[in-house]
């Protein structure tokens, strides 16, 4: 908060009030009645009190917006709470908050208003029950508050800055129908068949052989030198990590379905303790964003970051080309894409 920036007279009510005053004064001039004199005094003083109260409220007003969850799943019910705070003993029967709600992912923004009363000295709140229908990152914000005086003759618009954000994630259910073993074996065969040292793994350490280690990991030269079997301990870059490329569509509904499918597929992989590297195009930075997900928590975080950017920057027709250029050593990846309005999860070679 806050600076007062606008004063607006409600002429119809003001004229009504002035007519009451003028009529009373006119009657007093003729009748010289004590009753009419007192009425005139009351009209003036209540008018002054009402306007004074308005400015007192405007100078001390704060607006806060809360939402019941930062990350929620689609179709969940949530509650948006708008609070107005001040420490004055005055109150207002009508405050108008100019609100703005935006779905950043879907790039849609709407303005609307909340009319609520302002209780004296404390917090006035309004709770709005909401339901999320689409995934995305939502930004709800209040920029201006209009307060009307008690008599309804003057309004002051106050600039306030308050807002809250919320991410609506797709409901991630493990894809029962997705046959992950095919992807895993396919990838293993593809990768393992390649010459040693050209898979997407790196040697991290050398240690003594432990029964169960693969033969191909034995460091024969060093074993010969040291007289005992030594093995190369590998840390996987991609060997035990599935690369999943999400190719979003211009169609919002299809993109939503793609992300839904992605969630399901990744959950399936994660359930087999297979870490996933999610790749998604970022048109702003003109590169793929990488999200390593080794558990559901990381997956949700990844989704939150994906949904925080507009859909339009995720669209790129030439993603396959860019992927080849950006990841020349990547041989295969899982592509989640739209083919003739059918969402499909396919294994593709990075060629």
């Amino acid at each position, binding site marked *: 908060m806050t600076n007062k920036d606008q004063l607006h007279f*409600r002429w119809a*009510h003001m004229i*009504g009030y002035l007519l*009451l005053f003028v*009529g009373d004064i006119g*009657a007093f*001039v*003729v*009748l*010289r*009645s*004590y*009753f*009419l*004199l*007192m*009425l005139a*005094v*009351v009209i003036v*003083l*209540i008018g002054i*009190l009402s306007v004074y109260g308005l400015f007192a409220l405007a100078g001390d007003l704060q607006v806060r917006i809360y939402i019941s969850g930062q990350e929620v799943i689609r179709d969940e*019910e949530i509650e948006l709470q708008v609070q107005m705070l001040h420490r004055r003993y005055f*109150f*207002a*029967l*009508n405050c108008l908050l100019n*609100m703005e709600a*935006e*779905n950043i992912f*879907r790039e*849609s*923004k*709407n*303005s*609307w*208003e*909340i*009319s609520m*009363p302002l*209780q*004296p000295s404390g917090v006035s709140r*309004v709770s*709005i*029950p*909401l*339901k*999320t*229908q*689409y*995934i*995305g990152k*939502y930004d*709800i914000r209040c920029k201006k508050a209009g307060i*009307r005086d*008690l*008599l*309804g*003759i003057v309004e002051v618009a106050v600039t306030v800055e308050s807002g809250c954000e919320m991410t*609506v994630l797709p409901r991630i259910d493990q894809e029962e129908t997705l046959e992950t073993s095919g992807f895993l074996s396919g990838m293993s065969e593809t990768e393992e068949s390649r010459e040693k040292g050209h898979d997407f793994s790196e040697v991290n350490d050398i240690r003594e052989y432990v029964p169960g280690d693969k033969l191909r990991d034995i460091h024969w030269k060093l074993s010969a030198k040291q007289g005992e079997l030594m093995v190369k301990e590998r840390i996987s870059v991609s060997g035990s990590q599935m690369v999943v490329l999400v190719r979003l569509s211009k169609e919002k509904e299809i993109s939503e379905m793609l992300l839904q499918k992605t969630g399901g597929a990744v959950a399936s992989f994660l359930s087999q303790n297979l870490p996933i590297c999610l790749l998604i195009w970022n048109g702003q930075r003109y590169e793929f964003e990488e999200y390593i997900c080794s558990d559901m928590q990381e997956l949700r975080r990844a989704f939150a970051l994906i949904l925080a950017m507009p859909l339009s920057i995720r669209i790129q027709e030439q993603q396959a080309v860019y992927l080849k250029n950006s990841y020349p050593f990547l041989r295969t990846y899982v592509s989640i894409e739209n083919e003739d309005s059918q969402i499909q999860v396919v294994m593709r070679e990075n060629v």
Partner: protein
Amino acid sequence: MFDGFKETGHRRSEKRDLRKKQRQKKESPELTEGLVICPELMAGEKRIKMLLAKGVLVYLLVMGVMGAYLSSLDVELSWGVMHVIVFLCSLYCACLYYNKRWQNIGYLLLLAGIAAGGYFLGKYINSGFYAVANDMSEAASGFFDSNAMRSYGEQIGNRYAAITISMSYIGCICCVLVNIMVSRKMRCGLLVLLGAGVLAMPLYLEEEPSLLYMVMLFAGIFSCFMIRGNGHYLLTFRDQAFEWKSGKKLFSYVYDAKLVGRTVICVVLTCIIILGAGSVVYPRSLHQNIRGTSALKQDTLETVENISILGLAGLFNFYPNTGGLTNGTLGGVSAIRYDYETDLTIRFAPYTQNRIYLKTFTGCDYLPYRNRWQRQTDASGNVVLERADTTTAQMKKNYQKNKKKTGKGKIFVKNVAAAAGVYLPYYSEETDKVIYPGAQQEYTFYPSLSGKAIGVSENDRQEAVNDWLDIPEENQKEIAALCRNAGLSDTDSVQNNVKKLAQYYQDNIPYSYRPGATPYQEDFINYFLGKNKRGYCAHFASAATLAFRYMGIPARYVEGYGIDPGDISEEGTIEYDQKYEDYYQGYSEVGKTAVVSVNVTDASAHAWVEVFDPEMGWQVADVTPASGEEPDDNGLWQRILNFLGGGRNASDAQDSKNGDRTDSGAAAQVKRTTGYISVVLLVVIAGIFVIRRFGRQLLWLLRFYRSSRNDRLIMVYQRYLQRISRRHNSLKKHKNYKDQLNWLNNHGYWPSDVVRLEKAVSVLERAGFSRTEVTEEEYKLMSQCFRASQKRAGNASGRKRG
């Protein structure tokens, strides 16, 4: 024939799903894409609290206005009882809006309660109302320093109880009316105007309301203004604390009962503080001392005084300044009042200790039910000019013969503000000397002072008998009763009959300045003698004229001025430069006096009778009794009864004539009339309800059954469209059948699975524009579609039915 248009069940279910989605979208307003409000999860409204807050507001307003009015007049009543009754009634009235069913039942109960109250307590209500009206009259009387204000009969001896009951009853009715304005629309402007109207008169009369009611009234008005100025007071009956206004994209609270209550309390406290401080800093007593009277008020005093005496008729009041002089027109006013302004100035030498009369109108024929006296006319109906009668000639002759106790005088009459006419003293031959306003005339007269026979010829007597004995048939009965009751006799002397009648009047029929106007279609004399039994000079003189004629005594109805010796001695101015001899010669009852000038005001206007004495000739017979008021005045009520046709019937009238005017009769009358009013009100309300509820439908059905099949189809279609367009303004934009049906189809209202859209357009266009009649089958199918669509429309609206 429409089989080809029917679609498969699968397609139908798809469309149904689509429509369901559309409806859901409409019912769940969207803040942005994917974020919708769930109306079903919104908090409920606290309706009863809001209704109670409105009830308190109604109480403040009603009690504020009524209390201010009554306290300003210092009316004595049980304030506590009135407060409790009005408070409870306010709450009841406000709670009528709890829901629609209770609204209907509650209003009926309220109406029944009001009718029952009116029926059983009618007498108290009536009496209490009159008591307050009398208090207002008293205040006006004190303010205007006038004794001629109207007063109404208070039938109940216990004034305190009557006023309490009456004002509580009126307060309840006010609660109903104010509640409609407050609960529905918060019409504070209208309330201010009504309050100003009620309080205008006490404030004009410089009667100030008490501080308590000022606080209540101000608090009520300002609270109402504030709540209206900020909106959020209407009940929605949707049981939601907030509502989404899609047109304005506004999520608005419906109302906040707690804050409305706080508003009222704060305004009450603020008013208490301001008025309390005001009364300390600038007390009312100080204001009363220095208030003065504005010039504007001075200018309106006369008009307001007239209104306070005569009601709205006072605005058209041409009567008061001429007092009782109406040129024979009777019964047009309910009361007489004097402005004590000078009408005539007379200059003469006093010669008698009796009242001096100046005659200006002589009535010959009484016109019953038209309620006026007409001057003497000839055979062709033309008015005969007044001429000096034989009595005057005889007086003059006696004076000229120097008989005892005869004299000759001159009187100068100046018309200051009276109507143009002859103001003739007794007995003068100068009947043609008209005095116009501002002019002056000199009359010569020969007074009758001897009290002896003057020698009237047989011809004169015969002439009097011929011309002055007519009694209208319509008055015979009442006049006969009067003569019988007064003991008049045709064998008795004229003077004795005059004395008997005067005595009878004095004993039995009181003089009243405010007897009430003669009701419509009542005869002035019959009403006076048979029902009202009170009146002023014109009543007594008119009845007496006919009574004397009934006894065979020729008599005339006369209007003019009667100047009492007291007025002359008190108000007269001695004209020192005038010689007595120039004004009077001959015998004088008071001896030689100074010449005096007297201002004759409208208070001296009078009506009396001239009777023909066979020995004395035409003599003044003034039978009007001395002034005296009686509180038992039923004028207004009687007028209302007459207006409603609930006045006394023939037997009641007979009882009245017999003097049997009992209270039980009046009470029965009150009950009967209240019953009539209740029945009429109920019938009117029921009629309005039926017309409002079913009038249009009945008309529509009438038109429908008179129409051809094509017209019927169009009528049904139009009604169907109207119902949907009540919820969808966008439908109104479409003016042709095709667009309309397209719209309906797009919004899920048209069952295109039953009738294809193109076919429907074709059938409607044929019905609307072609002479070819649609087939019975087409008509039935289309009607079926409309009915099905209407059901969907009802469901889509989300309105709870029943």
